Each structure stands twice: as structure tokens, then as C-alpha cells.
């Protein structure tokens, strides 16, 4: 059972073959057995998990089961929860307890889910390898010398090693899709505005979006269905977002008539040959399933990374100003005066990558540089959006590799932030354009998972879920799991 999909577990719960307590116990045992090796969870409260499971079983005995009744779901340490600490894997929020639940946490609770614990992540979601976490790096279950991707590395590793059947992540520049890709699981970043950001610790407000990391396309759809919807307390949550029949979208058996765009800018020199081969093979499979592959161009792709690394740090530089040690969070010992309190508290509390981005952002916004950096980046953002709008006049969905390379070794890129930033080269444009993106496993490179990325038009998660579900049904990549953790590779 550990590597079962969420929907399989749901079937067994519904048919009375198991209970939420049994399911929770199983995953708690696996966490106890494997978390030391992976460092996927940074907070776990077994008694609280079991209490939720018991409550769910009781609810099921008295009512009709809710959409996620009794299903364990882990959440990234970026989601505020009333239960347990919310630390964003940063020393500046060490032992911070939020007095509120994030909107998506409320939604998960309302849907009957059992919240398993908080997963590891890059500090403030800034990173692509989970190595900037204040709680130490998380490891990739496929090769524990390798990174699990980031920033939602803990959620990805936990799902890949079946320490939980599913998890929530957040995606600002690829932080759901890239770790999903390099750990061989499925991750969905919904359209910007589909899921409320309230109670999610902000990194870059115009880009952040929460989404599921799971073992199957349908699992991802089930969770997104539960957490999405308008929230009047988030002005960027869209009130009249088109509704989707999330589960029906996952029933697709083939791709007849589907036009898949293959952007030439996403198949470039320098990317890993085996990654490329896996994705090319996946596209061939799609053709076999009835799809037409259309060569397209997204000409402004090459500027997307640069624009992102101006916009995201700019927003972050302001978003992280509230960590000033005045009302909550880490405060230095015996400050001399106000300035000393600010500078020393923030110096001690933030890690180096976070400081780098705050400084980059503050610089890009500063007087005399704003036009050259922030404004220019916003112009690029508009061009990137237009690229996609034009492309979707020709095609229904776009398919690309999720990451140009498979998981790399821990420490391999930590001294070279620019190379690290390039691991998000294929995921960033989707955030800039606010589009839905999904990564699913499509093969292996050097025995490490490779991700296939689907990109859809705004609000058309159903289009990419259908394509991904058809591909998943025709292949067995989603069934693969790391042998060292009891899976079948």
C-alpha cells in the first residue's frame, strides 16, 4: 500500500478495507523509519496525526465521506497552520506559531484530509535544490547523494519515498514542477488566481501559487479540486474563474485531435541528452495516442529567467521586510539600538541565498535603477505572456522537459548561484505568464527520474490534466518508485 495512489487508498477506505487510522499509522511508521535519511519532514506530531485520523473515521461512520476523507496529505513548511510551528525553513521564523490556517489548509480540513506534517523546503522557497533550508538539505529518494529539487523538495521526496501519499507545495518559478520532475512524481501548478494565497508565506506575490504533488494525475486533480476556489480575503484570487470538472478531465484515454506544441526554445544545446531523449520519446508516444505535434516558437523564452530574477527578488525584498524582529520572529541578543536590532536580527535570521535575493531586489527597485531593471523585466513579462497567447492560437497544450537536467549532487551547485538558477529555465516562463503547468514522470536519465512538463492556457488545467492522464495511462513511469524505500523501480 505505501506506494498506492491517493485514489486507491480512497477506494480502500470507502470499501471498508482499511481505516484512516491504519493508513495514518502506516505512513507515520515509514516517516519514523526513513525521515532521518531523507530529512523530508521538518515537523511531525504523530499523536496529532492519529487524532485527526480517528476523527475522520468517526466522521465517516456518521456522515457521508468528504472528498479527501481520511487521506494523509503533507504540507510544505510555507503554509501557515494553527497546529505546530510554521517556520518556512528559516531561522528568522524559528518556533513561529501562526494563529491562523492558510486558506488551503482550511480547505483540506474541510475536505476531510489528515494533515501529516510540515515538509522541508528551501528557505522562504528560494532555491532549486532544497539546500538553503535552515533545517539542512533534504535528499532525493532515488539517490540520497542527490538533491530532491526545490523549493518544495521535502514534499517531493516525501511523496517519492511514500512517506505520504500526497503533499502540497508552492510554485513561484518551478518549485512544484522541478522537484516533482527530479523525484519522479506528478506536480501541478494551477493558474495564478485559482488557489488562494492567504496564509501562504509570500515569496513573490505575483508569481506564487500552491498546488499538489502526488503519485498520479488524478490524485493531483483531486487535491486541486479541494484547495481551489475564490477567497474574498485574497484580492488576487479570481472570483469568476471558469469551473473545471477536475476528475472528468482525468478520464482521458487517448489524445485524438490534440494539438501539442513543441517549442524549439525548450529543446536546446546544453541540456542533458538523456533528458532530451526521454521527452522526445514521450512526444512520440503522444503521437501514437493520436496527438499532432506542432513545432512552435516562444521567442522571448531566453529573457524569462533574467526577468524572473529581477521580479521575484524585487517582490521578495518587500515581502520579507516584515521579518524585522519587532513583533515576531528571531531577535538578536541585547541590541544596542534600533538599527543594530534590525541588522543583526536579520543577519542572523536569514540565510545567504535569501540575503542575496533581498539585496538583488532592493537594488533593482532603487532610485535610478528601477527603469533599467524592474520596469524592463515587467516589459519582458508582458512579451512572455504574449508568446503563450500566440502559441495557444495554434495548439491546445504545450509539452516540454520540466528541467534540463536530472537531479544533481548535493553541494554541486551551491557555490554557483547562476548555474543553480538555470535549473528553472523551463519552468519560469509559466509563472511569469500565470499559466497552469504540470510535471509528470516520463523516463530516466542516469537512473534518475525525468519530468515531462505540460503547459496549458489560463484556466485550462483540464486540458493538461487530460493530456497527462492519457500519457500516464499508456505508460508505466508513474508506477516507478525508488527500490531503497521499498518501491518498484
Amino acid at each position, binding site marked *: 500500500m505505501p506506494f498506492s495512489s491517493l485514489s486507491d487508498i480512497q477506494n480502500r477506505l470507502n470499501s471498508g478495507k482499511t481505516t484512516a487510522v491504519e493508513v495514518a499509522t502506516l505512513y507515520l511508521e515509514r516517516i519514523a523509519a526513513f525521515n532521518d535519511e531523507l530529512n523530508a519532514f521538518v515537523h511531525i506530531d504523530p499523536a496529532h496525526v492519529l487524532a485527526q485520523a480517528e476523527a475522520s473515521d468517526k466522521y465517516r461512520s456518521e456522515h457521508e465521506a468528504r472528498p479527501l476523507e481520511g487521506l494523509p496529505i503533507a504540507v510544505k513548511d510555507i503554509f*501557515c497552520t494553527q497546529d505546530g510551528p*510554521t517556520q*518556512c525553513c528559516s531561522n528568522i*521564523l524559528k518556533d*513561529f506559531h*501562526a*494563529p*491562523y490556517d*492558510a486558506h488551503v489548509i482550511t480547505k483540506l480540513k474541510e475536505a476531510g484530509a489528515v494533515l501529516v506534517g510540515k515538509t522541508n523546503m528551501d528557505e522562504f522557497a528560494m532555491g532549486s535544490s532544497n539546500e538553503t533550508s535552515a533545517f539542512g538539505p533534504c535528499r532525493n529518494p532515488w539517490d540520497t547523494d542527490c538533491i530532491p529539487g526545490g523549493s518544495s523538495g521535502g514534499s517531493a521526496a516525501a511523496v517519492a519515498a511514500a512517506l505520504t501519499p500526497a503533499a502540497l507545495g508552492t510554485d513561484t518559478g518551478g518549485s512544484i514542477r522541478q522537484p516533482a520532475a527530479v523525484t519522479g512524481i506528478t506536480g501541478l501548478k494551477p493558474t495564478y488566481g485559482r488557489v488562494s*494565497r*492567504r*496564509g*501562504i*508565506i*509570500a515569496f*513573490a*506575490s*505575483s508569481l506564487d501559487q500552491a498546488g499538489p504533488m502526488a503519485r498520479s494525475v488524478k490524485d493531483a486533480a483531486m487535491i486541486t479540486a479541494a484547495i481551489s476556489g475564490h477567497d*474574498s*480575503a*485574497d*484580492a*488576487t484570487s479570481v472570483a469568476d474563474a471558469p469551473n473545471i470538472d477536475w476528475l472528468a478531465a482525468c478520464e482521458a484515454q487517448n489524445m485524438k485531435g490534440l494539438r501539442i506544441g513543441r517549442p524549439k526554445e525548450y529543446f536546446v544545446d546544453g541540456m542533458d541528452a538523456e533528458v532530451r531523449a526521454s521527452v522526445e520519446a514521450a512526444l512520440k508516444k503522444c503521437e501514437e495516442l493520436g496527438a499532432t505535434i506542432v513545432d512552435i516558437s516562444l521567442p522571448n523564452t531566453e529573457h524569462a529567467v533574467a526577468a524572473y530574477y529581477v521580479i521575484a527578488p*524585487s*517582490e521578495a*525584498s*518587500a515581502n*520579507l*521586510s*516584515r521579518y*524585522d524582529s*519587532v*513583533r*515576531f520572529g528571531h531577535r538578536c541578543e541585547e541590541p544596542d539600538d*534600533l538599527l543594530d536590532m*534590525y541588522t543583526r536580527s536579520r543577519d542572523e535570521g536569514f540565510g545567504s541565498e535569501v540575503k542575496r535575493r533581498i539585496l538583488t531586489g*532592493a537594488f533593482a*527597485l*532603487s*532610485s535610478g535603477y*528601477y527603469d533599467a531593471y*524592474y520596469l524592463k523585466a515587467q516589459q519582458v513579462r508582458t512579451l512572455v505572456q504574449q508568446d503563450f497567447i500566440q502559441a495557444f492560437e495554434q495548439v491546445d497544450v504545450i509539452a516540454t522537459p520540466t528541467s534540463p537536467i536530472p537531479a544533481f549532487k548535493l553541494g554541486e551547485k551551491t557555490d554557483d548561484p547562476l548555474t543553480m538558477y538555470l535549473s528553472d529555465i523551463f519552468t519560469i516562463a509559466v509563472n511569469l505568464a500565470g499559466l497552469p503547468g504540470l510535471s509528470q514522470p516520463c523516463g530516466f536519465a542516469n537512473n534518475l527520474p525525468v519530468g515531462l512538463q505540460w503547459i496549458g492556457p489560463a484556466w485550462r488545467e483540464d486540458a493538461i490534466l487530460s493530456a497527462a492522464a492519457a500519457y500516464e495511462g499508456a505508460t508505466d513511469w508513474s508506477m516507478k518508485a525508488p527500490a531503497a524505500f521499498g518501491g518498484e523501480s
Partner: protein
Amino acid sequence: MSWEVVIGLEVHCQLNTATKAFCGCSTKFGAEPNTQTCPVCLGMPGQLPVLNTVAVDKTILTGLAINAHINLESKFDRKNYFYPDLPKGYQISQFAVPIVEGGYIDIPTKDGGEKRLGVTRIHMEEDAGKSMHEGLDAVSHIDLNRSGVPLMEIVSEPDMRSADEAIAYLKQLHQLIRFLGVSGADMEKGQFRCDANVSVRRPGEPFGTRTEMKNMNSFRFIKQAIDFEVLRQIEIIEDGGAVVQESRLWDSVKSESRSMRSKEEAHDYRYFPEPDLPPLRVSQQEVDAIKAGMPELPGQLRQRFETEFGLSSYDADVLSQTREIAAWYESLVAAHPADPKRCANWMANELLGRLNEIGKDLSESPVSALRLAGLLERIGDNSISGKAAKDVLDAMMESDDSADTIIEAKGLKQVSDSGAIDVIIKQVMDANPGQVEGYRGGKDKLMGFFVGQVMKASRGTANPGVVNQRLKELLKG
């Protein structure tokens, strides 16, 4: 050679919404520190702003009242700076595209004309909390009740040429805002605060270097601060120096200003669009609806009082000072429609004067408009003299009795009966034979003496007109 003073003003005005700009917390003044806060206005992680649309409507109303353009799409920006009473480390404001642009305010000039002063823009923003340092040793206290209270910042063109013009502009604006009901504008509570940008130049020359006097909340201090600053700048230049662009703080105790920070130390606020709030869109229909609900403004009211009630411009001005005074006056006229001018005189000179003496507001007036009208009726029908009426009003201020009851009790009912008056006149003539002699000998001025004596003898109840007439008759001999 003479100097020309150039002044531009920025007014921060708290909007009187029930809840804060971006959360549901109460804006009530004077609550225990930090009791009117929530995760949003405390800047807790993950919390997001939701715009209070009542604040938007009030800002639009203000914009319309100064004949400004309303931007149907405006934007919010973040103004970044660190201070302990600014929870998020940035203030949500409007920088690039404010909701209101380009209006004006007319102020009266000494020659009876008007001068038009431009208003560059009005934008919405949120207030910060309050830091308290005084009386504390080595610590500061912070009260975040005010954090997130909605403000409008009203920025003028550099059109004022004297401290008096600046004060006239501020008073006009203050009155307008009170009339619109968009703010309590209580200056002592910091609901109406002013920054003044001041420079001097030789007439015809380009603008001089300006300094900014920050955060003043009294008309008197603002005038003092501007006057002080003008002299300081002129002195610097005349001594061959140069004015340094800086922010200055007015010390009302020492009556002098001191430097707060220079241009070099000035904040770089790193403004950028607020990603948590989509652009603010309002429809022309919404703007039109707000316009339709616009109350009568002070200028219109003044005009109407002059034409409809025949008031002098002075009385019209006094009675249109606030919406409350005007409404009180109109209810007085409704109760005593016979003589709106009498209503104006008695309200402006007698009632407001008495209230002022006892330090009460019109809303606390012991005499209602209806009771005052009862007194004015008696003046109108000659039941009581104006002089006696003042005594009656004094008594009314201290009791709940009607004018008639007091007149009755004090025996102040005016005597117009010539027979009764003749009796008094004769008594006075008998008591003053020398003066009678003198009058008859040609000393006309003694008439005043006799009127006074008769009025005194009648304890003010004799009708002065009848007294005059009968005196002339009887003194002839």
C-alpha cells in the same frame, strides 16, 4: 529687493471609515493600545490586504468636490521603509497612478476676489502605528491600533505665496472635508496633518531650493513654522549661503524648526506596484452615483444663504462654517420664517457667542433651535425688546423654560401702551426738572438721557419706539 515665498502643501487626512483600509479592524480612536489589530494590520506572514471600498468612495467624493479628474483605473504601490510602527516594512500607497488628479480650491483674497490654488493629486494610503518613546527608559512602545487606518494624501501645487494663503487653503480644505463627512478632520487627534514645502525666490526667478516641514497639526503652528522657515531661508541666502534641501521638524515649544534629515539621508522608498492588489477599477456610473450624492458645499451654501435669506456675506460665512451650524440655522429659520436675518443675528452673535463663553459645541447647546425661535417670535411681535431678549436668552441658557415663561416670570413683557408709558415719562420728568428745562432750552442731546431713564424705570419693558415718540410729544410741554 523683495522675496517671493513659494509654498506647496501635503495634507494627510484620515478617512472616517468604520474599518481599516485593508482589514476589518475598527478605526475607533482612543482604544487600549494594540486592541484593534488583526494578523493583516500586524503584518503577519501570509496575510493579504483587501481594499475597503468605502474609503475609495470617500476619496472619490473629495476629488469631485475639488473639481478633479477621477482615474477610473488607479494602482496601488508599496512604499518601502523600515520603522517599528510600520508592520509590513512597507506602506501600501498610490504612487504612479493615484485615484484623483488635477483639482483646485478657491480661497478669498483681501481685495474681495478669489485665488485659485491647484491640487495636483489625492491618493489613498494606509496609516502607520504609533511609536511612544517619552517617559520610557531604553525601550519604545508601539501601538498598532492606527496601523492600516485609511488616509487620503492631498497634494497641492506650489501655488501659495504666503503663510496666510497656505492657512486659507488649509482652512478651506478642512472645512470642505468636514462638510463632505469623509473625515472627522480632528487636528488634535492627528486626523488632519500637514507637511509644508517652502522655498523663496526673487520674483520671476525659477523655484528656489525647498525644505519640507513635516507633520504639523495646528493652523497656528503651520503659520509659525512657515513664517520662521521663510525668514531662515532669506537670511541664509542674503548671507551668501544656500538653502539645503531637507526635511525639518517644527518644535512648537521652542518656536523653531530643526533639521530631520537631508536629501542625502532621504529614504529611497523603492516604490513598485503592490502585487497583492489588482488595479483599482471604478466605473463612470459609480463615480456619477457618488457625485449625485454630493452634499451642498460651503461655497454653495454661503451663496444660497445670501440670496435666499438676504444675509450679509459675513453672516453667511459664519453660518456655513460647518454642516452642523448650517443645519441648525436652517432649522431655526424653519421655526421662525418671518425673519431669517434676525435668525442669523441671534444665532451668530448671541447664541454662538454664549456657547463659546461656556466652551460648548452647538450640538451641546442648552437652547434648541425651537426654543430660540420662541424668543425671536416675541421680538418679532414686539412683545419684548431686543435688550430684554438678551436677558431672556441668558436665562434660557440656564433653564429648560420657554421664552414666554421666562418673560412672564421676569415681567419683561414689553409695554407699548402709550397711556402706561406716559405715566412713567411723567414720573421721570417730575424727578428731573433741570433736564426738562435744559431740553426745552434747546439741548436736544438730552433726549438720550430721557430715553435711558424711562427704559430704566420700566426695567427695559417699555417699547423704545413708543417711548421715543411719547417723549418728544410730552417734552414739548
